[in-house]
Each structure stands twice: as structure tokens, then as C-alpha cells.
């Protein structure tokens, strides 16, 4: 069902035709999704808001996120500062929105990169088996056996802390950790009757991988993907706690929650509430949306 929809949508866009039709279809698909997966739809909405906030943070009429103003120091939430201000008088709402951009970059960017590598490694390894599998798996074993703390901090310390380098470090970790799951899923289905049938019918490796294996490991990879978006956003936060996160003055959510701010939990809780809620909701929404998406997209779940 969704495959058909996307094909139609794609051809519609390509031809520049049938716009009303496509819009109708998309709306109805979204509506069906929302009815079947209310939590998933709600999470999706949260993510759309997050992306919008991140994109629009420069356009919206907000206070500057990086200008220190002692006269505005530690204001509790008010009309002019909906989430209050920090100990430097910077508007927390602007900083949270700006932080959304960093979290997306680190969380989504790092995970897309990481999971893509992981899937390729896992499929090649699981499908080819034999010596290729052995070599890849031993490499994965090696990297995965290095405590993530050494790996992440090592990479960041060598490259220097910046948004890009934190993203790269997290992608590296994700790719090796997830490839085992991809491989596990491939191994679990590559001897299934339908794959063997395809092979008997003369399908080549490429065809088997792209039309049989990939769609069928899509479900676990979506889960791994959503799990890792969350994990990577949280990892950035933990790295900030350890002093290796995105450096100031860039307001990553993790950075806003760690350092000295964490100690002001009682006297200035609004320092933590904004970024804390944003981070928690984002990780929550990513995970719930991933779950719902998987339920809907899974080929064998269709029509259930």
C-alpha cells in the first residue's frame, strides 16, 4: 500500500502532474496512520515541530541565543522569556531551539551515516558468509570490543570537539555496533524458503539483496535506527557531562543540562526544564515514531 503510494507520488512529482490527487492520497495515508497509530502520529508531529523549530530558529522573532546580558540574569519564565534566562542572561527558548539544530545534526546525521554503514557491512557479511563474513565480523568484534568511552573520547580528543567531530565519532560507534544486528537479521532470513526460492529461480546476489533481504531487514534496521537516534542524542549529552560534548557557546541540549547548570536544580530549575524536556521528548518521539513506522511498513504486517 505505502509502496504504491510513494511510487505514485514520485511519478506525480516527476511529471509535475496530478498534484491534487497526490495531496489527497498523502492526506488520507497520514490520516490512516494517525488512526491506526495515534502515539506514533503524535510522536511524528513532535518531530515535525522539532525540525520546524530547528529550521526556523534563526527566522523566528526570538532573543539572541548567544548574547550575554547581566541585567537579564536568571530570570524565571515570563512573557518576554517563555523558558526563562540562564546565568548569563541568555534566552533559554532561543537556546533550546538552536540546540534542536545541533541535536538533529548529531542525532540524525550521526545515525543516518552510522546505520547506512552498518547495514552495508551487515548485509555483505551476513549474505556472503564464509571468509568475508569472518573478516568483517572480526573487525566488528575488534571495534565493538573497544570500550565506547575510549573510542568516542579518543576520536573527539584527537579531532577536537566540534559539532561535526562529535557527529563523526557517534556515527563511527553506531556503524560498528549496529552491523551485528543487521547481520543477525540477514542470517536469520537468508535461508528462508522465499530467499531460497528466489535463488533457485536464478535471482542474482544484487537482486536477492535489494528485493528480498533489504526489505526484510528493514524492520530491525528501523528499530536500530530510531534506537540509535535516541542513543546518539543521549550520548552527546553524556559526552557533554564528561566535558567532551559540543563546545560552548553552541547550546547543545546535553551541554545545557551538564556543567554547573545541573547543580542549580533547586534554585533555577528552568535552566534544566527547557532543554531537559526537549531532549527527553525528542528521544521519546523518535523511538515511538520508529515503532509505529515499523508496524506499518513491515511487509509481512501488511493487511493484518
Amino acid at each position, binding site marked *: 500500500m505505502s509502496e504504491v503510494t510513494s511510487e505514485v507520488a514520485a511519478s506525480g512529482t516527476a511529471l509535475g502532474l496530478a498534484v491534487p490527487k497526490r495531496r489527497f492520497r498523502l492526506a488520507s495515508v497520514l490520516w490512516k496512520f494517525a488512526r491506526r497509530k495515534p502515539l506514533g502520529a503524535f510522536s511524528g508531529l513532535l518531530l515535525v515541530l522539532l525540525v520546524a523549530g530547528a529550521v526556523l530558529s534563526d527566522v523566528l522573532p526570538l532573543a539572541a541565543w548567544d548574547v550575554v546580558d547581566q541585567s537579564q540574569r536568571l530570570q524565571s519564565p515570563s512573557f518576554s522569556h517563555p523558558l526563562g534566562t540562564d*546565568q548569563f542572561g541568555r534566552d533559554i527558548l532561543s537556546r533550546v531551539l538552536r540546540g534542536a539544530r545541533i541535536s538533529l545534526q548529531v542525532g540524525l546525521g550521526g545515525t543516518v551515516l552510522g546505520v547506512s554503514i552498518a547495514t552495508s557491512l551487515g548485509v555483505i557479511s551476513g549474505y556472503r558468509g564464509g571468509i568475508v563474513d569472518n573478516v568483517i565480523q572480526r573487525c566488528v568484534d575488534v571495534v565493538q570490543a573497544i570500550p565506547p568511552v575510549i573510542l568516542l573520547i579518543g576520536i573527539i580528543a584527537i579531532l577536537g570537539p566540534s559539532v561535526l567531530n562529535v557527529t563523526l565519532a557517534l556515527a563511527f560507534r553506531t556503524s560498528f555496533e549496529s552491523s551485528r544486528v543487521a547481520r543477525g537479521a540477514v542470517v536469520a532470513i537468508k535461508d528462508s524458503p522465499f530467499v531460497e526460492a528466489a535463488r533457485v529461480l536464478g535471482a542474482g546476489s544484487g537482486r536477492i539483496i535489494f528485493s528480498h533481504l533489504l526489505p526484510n531487514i528493514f524492520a530491525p534496521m528501523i528499530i536500530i535506527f530510531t534506537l540509535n537516534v535516541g542513543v546518539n542524542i543521549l550520548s552527546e549529552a553524556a559526552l557533554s557531562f564528561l566535558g567532551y560534548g559540543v*563546545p560552548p557557546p553552541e547550546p547543545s541540549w546535553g551541554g545545557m543540562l551538564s556543567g*554547573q547548570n545541573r547543580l542549580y536544580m533547586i534554585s533555577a530549575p528552568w535552566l534544566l526544564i527547557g532543554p531537559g524536556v526537549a531532549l527527553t521528548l525528542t528521544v521519546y518521539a523518535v523511538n515511538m515514531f520508529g515503532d509505529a513506522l515499523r508496524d506499518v511498513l513491515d511487509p509481512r504486517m501488511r493487511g493484518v
Partner: protein
Amino acid sequence: MEPEQSYWQRFWTKKVTRRRLVTRSLMAGAGLAAVATVGCGDDDGGGTTTATATAGATTPGATSTPSPTPATGLPPFGGEAVLHTQFQFGDFNPFRSPFAPSIGGLGCTLDTPLEFGPLDFELRGRLLDSWEIVGDGSEILFDINPDAKWHNQAPVNARAVDAEDMALNITRYAGKVDPSEVRLASNMFGLDTADVVGDQLRLNMSTPSLSVLNGLAYYQMTVHPREVIEAEEAFTDPSKFVGSGAFVLDKYDNGVEAIFSRNPEYWRKDSLGQQLPYLDSVRFKWLSDPAAEKAAFESGDVDYIQMLDQLVRDEILTARPDTQVTSYLAWGSAFNFRFNTAKAPFSDARVRKAIHLALDYEDVINPILGSNWAYSGALSAALPEAIPSSEISQMPGWNPATKAQDLEQARSLMSDAGFPDGGISFSIMVITTQQTDEMAVTIQSLLKGIWPAMDVNVEVVEVADLSSRLGAGDFDSVVQFAPRLPDAALDLFNNYSTGGSLNWGAYSNSALDALIDDSLTAIDADGRSSAILQAEETILEELPVIWLGTVDLAQGWDPKIVGVQQLLGPGSTSSIADSHYHSSRYGIEA
């Protein structure tokens, strides 16, 4: 030379109330600085609470005299104090890494050659009893305190501390035995050799200097028995440490806990002849997180906490209103903003000065310390020989009242230096664990507000990276919580002279070098003071380093601990483990 005796006699006979004493000490420390006086107001309140608490009175704010001191003796003291640290210690070689013995709890088992009166910063004897400067200062002779003896433990078994021990320790500290043991070598400025003459210790000075005396009072200059030093076991196994201090080491489980019990035969007595120390035992715990430290103090698990951060301090006082608060200007460390003067744009004094004039010091420091800091010039505001912070705060750049005209001047200085729109580009190097990143961010924002074309970048690095880049001169500027020395001339020498051991920015000025040289080698106090003053004035013109402020160190104590007020002043160390803390009425009333 018995300042300690006379000091305590004065204390008890004149019946100075504890409250007045506290106030006085704080005033002395703060140098009557406008900002610090505000701090004093707060602290006086804390002091009052303490006075009433210790007196057992229930009326808050009562100005009654503290617990009456019976002529026959003092109220019985005892009990156990629970202290803590966040530092992790690896190297226990005191000559190479003095942090472990002095901060790692072991300090309370050890003594230093000389010491500072905590309240008056006056140099006084400890293991070394008195000294005599011979002739032109090329020799200094010391008597060893006749009472001083080591713990009654193998391998020293309560033998007396002798000149040979002292000579060996000082030689090691001077880095004369092992070139890698140079951490405190600069404290021994001008020392050629240390040897024994009769039962006296003799320092042979290649360059006569008074600074070496202050260096010997540095709290990290702990003295160890020669048997222990020669065996070297203690340097890797702290349980092998044997000292002469107020406490005896019972157990040292590095990173977990250390337990010290009272040394019943400690060689020091208080002014009334009462045996020191007052505490029965000290339990030293490791915590690794500031939130845990705060919680541990609030729940009464530890008896002490350092409260640098203003907001944290407020939270602690709300949670535990009975907390005794002490506060004093600490000479030990200060925040600085240091320029690499070997590289453009900071090789130009006009650029440095423009930045200084443009900075709003209160904006940079208040978010972190609140009002608990004092303006400082080239020296720590706590040092008696420094230009007092009350004067500094009236100077251009520091004075908030003249900010508008300072800004004008800053702009024109920057233009003169060839940057009419301030279009310089530099990075500020910081490490994350000191809150200096927050200061750097404020500086960045302030400067960008004044010169939008200025490109300021905050660069967060690790300790190892910071150290290697500072050493290699591979930085533009750095904001750090930097160590300072308890001697004005030594501090100037290390921070500003060509090739000085803390002169990371490679600043070099031959006129200043000559002045610093004068201050170091002057044998008369007046000549020394005037040389120090001139040097400081030169530095304030040149500003190779901007000192962002001296910390007015606020500490919280469990109300049961008595006597801390008498121990904390500008001459204090920031190390609660120092046996200094156990050298007077510091304890728990039984």
C-alpha cells in the same frame, strides 16, 4: 622568634570576641575593598551564627562573648571530622607532585618548615624555629624546633626532626637531586645548597633572597623523614608515609577513604599548653562529582564543603541554614586571562590593553562567583605586598563607573594598533572542569558586542592538551584557574619574568625583569616592597596577563566544628587536610 605564642597569648588575654576577630581578619584579607566589603557583610552574618552556635546561645545575632575560656583550660574537644576531596591522586612523590601529600589527606600527618599565620599572613616558625640572615644574605641559618619529632612508627620511632632531615628535603625540593623534581624548585629561589652546621640548618644562597623564607612556608613543602625519602616506597604506596604532623595515618585506601587518628605525642601545644590536635580522628573520603559533594554536605555525611559557586552556595544555605560559612581571600589560585605575547595580535600591548578596558569584570565573574571575589592587579589580592584591590577597583578598566570612557579609549587603542573595527581573530583556550569555559563565553560575547568584526573562538581542550600547548606556546590566549605563590616576588618572577615557570605567554620585558630581580634579591623589607610595587605598576601598564579576580573562598562547615574561624584568613591554605588546620582550636566540642 615566637610569633605563634605571642599571637595566641594576645588572643586569649585580650579576650577578643570571636566575632570581632572574624570581622577583623576578613577586613584585613579583603584590604577594605569595596567589593569585598559587601562580601564581608555576608560573612559577618555567617560568623555571628557561628559565634552563637559555639557559645550554645539560642538568641540569633547575639554579640555576647564566645564560650568563656576558663583560666584552667578549654572545654573538652574530640570527635571525628569527615572531610572529602574530588582529586584523584597517582603520584605520591612530594617533590614531583606535591598535590598528593598536601591535598590528598596526608597533609595532616605532615608539617612544613615554616608557615604563615592564617589570619595575619605573618611568617612564623614551624619545624624550623627561628632564622638568622648572615651578612649579605648569602647564608641563612635555621634552628630546628627542639620539640619537633616524628611519629612513633617504624622506621623513625619518634626520633627528633633534625637538620639533616631538613637539608635533604630542601635539597630535593630545589630539584638538586633529580631534575624531574622541579615542581617547587622555584620556591627555593637563589638556593645553592642546604647543609648541616652543628645542629643547625644552613642554606647557602647563590643569590641572596628573602623569598626563600616564604617559599619554605608554602603548604605543599611538606617535610618527610630521610628514611622514608630514601626508601622511596611511600612515593608509590601512601600507607608508607610517616610524618611529624598532628595525625597518624591509620589507613590509606587511595580513591576510597583515608583514616587518620590523633597523634597523642604531637609536638605542638596551643597557647595554654593544651596538647594539639583537638580532633580524635579525621576521615577523608573521595567523591567524584560536585552534585554528590553538595548532597553529602546537605545530608550531613561530610562536615565541610567548598562553595565557590554563588548559586550552589545559596542552595546549600537554604537546605542547611545552620551551616557555618567562612570566607577569605585565597592567595592560592585565581582566574586569569593570559595572552600569548609572542604572537600577533597580542604581541601588541595596545591590543591587550584595549581588551582589558573593554571587559566588564563583574559581568565575567559575577555569574560564577557572585560577589565573592576581589579585583586584583598583577598579584593575588590576598598578598600583603600587592596593590590592594580597593585601589585596583578604582583604576581604568576595572572601575565600573568609568566604563563608558574606558570603552572610548579601548576603541582608539585598537585603532592605533591597526584594527579600527577591532577585526582581530583569536581563540580562547579553556578546559571544561573549572567553569573557565563560562568565563570565556562571556568574554567572547562582550568583545563581539563592542567590536562586531572581532572573531573570538572558544576552544575547549583537555588538561594534557592544555599543558602541552601552553608549554609549546601554541595558543592565542587562555582563561584558566591558575596556581599562585605565597610570595609576591616569587609570583612576579614566575608569572612575568622572561622564561618564568608560569609565564606561558612568553612575555619578556627587560626593564620588568630588572625590577623583579630587585624585588627578589632585596634583603631589606622596604627595598623589596618598593621594587614589588614598581614591578606591579609596570605590569598593569603592559598587561601580559589579565587577572580576572581573586577568589574570596567561601566554605561551609558543619556547625559542630569549632574554631575554623581562627584558622581561615588570607594566610590560609585552601587545603583542609593540611595540619595547619589542626594547629589550634579546630575540633568538635565534646
